[in-house]
């Protein structure tokens, strides 16, 4: 069940990234292509098979997991900038790119790297499951490492949430309002990841569902806005010009 969710999310995300290639070559909003590409990479790195293969190549100490965290940070950072600019949420943009956002990013990153270095992480395993063994010190570190990794995405998406919620009942085109609703759902799901330490191990599948709901919501929401633009027949002005006969 979880495998199906993982691979189908990967497929959807990969397809959208691939579909975005031509417009990226034309120079239309390249950063959106990067967002989809980064998200595809992130999903790839969270699936056991590809993860092990990549991690082995990186030395088998789960460096790929640290890489995954930073890939997610980068993707969510660009999503934050693009969405807050697009929806005219100046306050959110300042909270992401301003001093506060930089401090949060820096602190979270430093804490995360430090915790990773303190952990004994030999033996490739996606999500670091089973790596820490029964050592209480190591598993406590892992708990904090996971929390740090979830903190930055949660910060960004919660900053975006008000603008999304405001856009849903607005007079914008209906596809954009749907997209805003989907993105808001993704933001809520990402915020919910902060509660993972409270979820009993028996309901571990819930964590997967919340994670993949969040990713799917962001990917689908952004794709819907793109579809709305394509449907409206508007071309984005690029720096290239051509003369028509």
């Amino acid at each position, binding site marked *: 069940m979880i495998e199906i969710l993982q691979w189908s999310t990967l497929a959807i995300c990969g397809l959208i990234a691939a579909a975005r290639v031509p417009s990226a070559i034309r120079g239309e909003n390249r950063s959106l292509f990067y967002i989809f590409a980064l998200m595809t990479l992130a999903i790839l790195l969270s699936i056991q098979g590809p993860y092990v293969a990549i991690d082995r190549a990186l030395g088998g100490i789960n460096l790929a997991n640290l890489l995954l965290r930073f890939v997610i940070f980068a993707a969510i950072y660009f999503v934050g900038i693009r969405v807050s600019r697009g*929806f005219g949420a100046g306050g959110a943009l300042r909270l992401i790119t301003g001093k506060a956002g930089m401090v949060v990013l820096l602190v979270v990153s430093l804490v995360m790297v430090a915790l990773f270095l303190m952990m004994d992480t030999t033996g490739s395993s996606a999500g670091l499951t089973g790596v820490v063994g029964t050592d209480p010190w190591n598993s406590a570190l892992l708990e904090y490492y996971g929390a740090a990794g979830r903190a930055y995405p949660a910060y960004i998406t919660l900053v975006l949430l008000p603008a999304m919620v405001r856009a849903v009942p607005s007079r*914008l085109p209906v596809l954009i309002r749907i997209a805003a609703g989907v993105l808001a759902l993704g933001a809520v799901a990402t915020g919910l990841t902060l509660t993972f330490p409270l979820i009993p191990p028996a309901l571990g599948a819930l964590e997967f569902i919340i994670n993949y709901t969040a990713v799917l919501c962001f990917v689908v929401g952004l794709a819907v*806005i793109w579809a*709305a633009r*394509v449907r409206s027949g508007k071309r984005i002005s690029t720096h290239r010009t051509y003369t028509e006969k």
Partner: protein
Amino acid sequence: MTLPAKAFQRWLQGIAPDASTADVCRVSGIKRTTLAQQLVRGKVAVSTVVSISRAYNINPVAALATFEPYRSLAGPLPSPTRNELVSQISTADLLRAVLARPAMDPAAGGKSPPPLSPAPHATSVKNWVDAIDDGEVRHRVSAATGIAAQNYSAQLTANRLSPELAIATSHAAGVGPTGGLVATGLITEEEAGWPPGARQGALDSLSDGDLTTLAGDRLQALGKVLRRQEQDQAQTEKIWENLG
């Protein structure tokens, strides 16, 4: 609200006893599937009755009056008030009338503007309600019909109003029941029994000051709508620019 299919069939029997459904559709220009669907669901649209009445040369107002919810349309109807008449003049026609007044433009010199375009116009529903509103009409309509004030306003802004709400609004304002049906374009002024030239007469009877103020109000409202559309458009463009 729609009309019950049973009452509709009875009415149709009365005006076209031998006509088949296909005949009725052909002469009235209603799509067969549309009418069939309305009959199957037991809910016949008011506009269906209006189209069929016109096809059989029956006044649609008289036809509607035979249905229970539209009883108030029967009998001698009061004439529309001057405010109602003026509300059914389009903003463009109002502005032309202003420019034709010597007080506004002494050079215009008696050149009378072209005849008024027929009702309804782009904001006729909202203008009609504004024209008969004593400040409490919306409140009374929502109390009488149970429609939420917000939904009622939304209909007015979209220049729509269902026939039963149009009638309820007339009742709430204490004016004749046809005004709203004309404003929504369901029936024509002539069918409503408004005398020919009534709107022109009402317009001519407005003083220079009243006419100019009214035109100003209309322009201001139009400006607000246009500005809002422009803002929405700008925001949409921004979203596409960043996320498209």
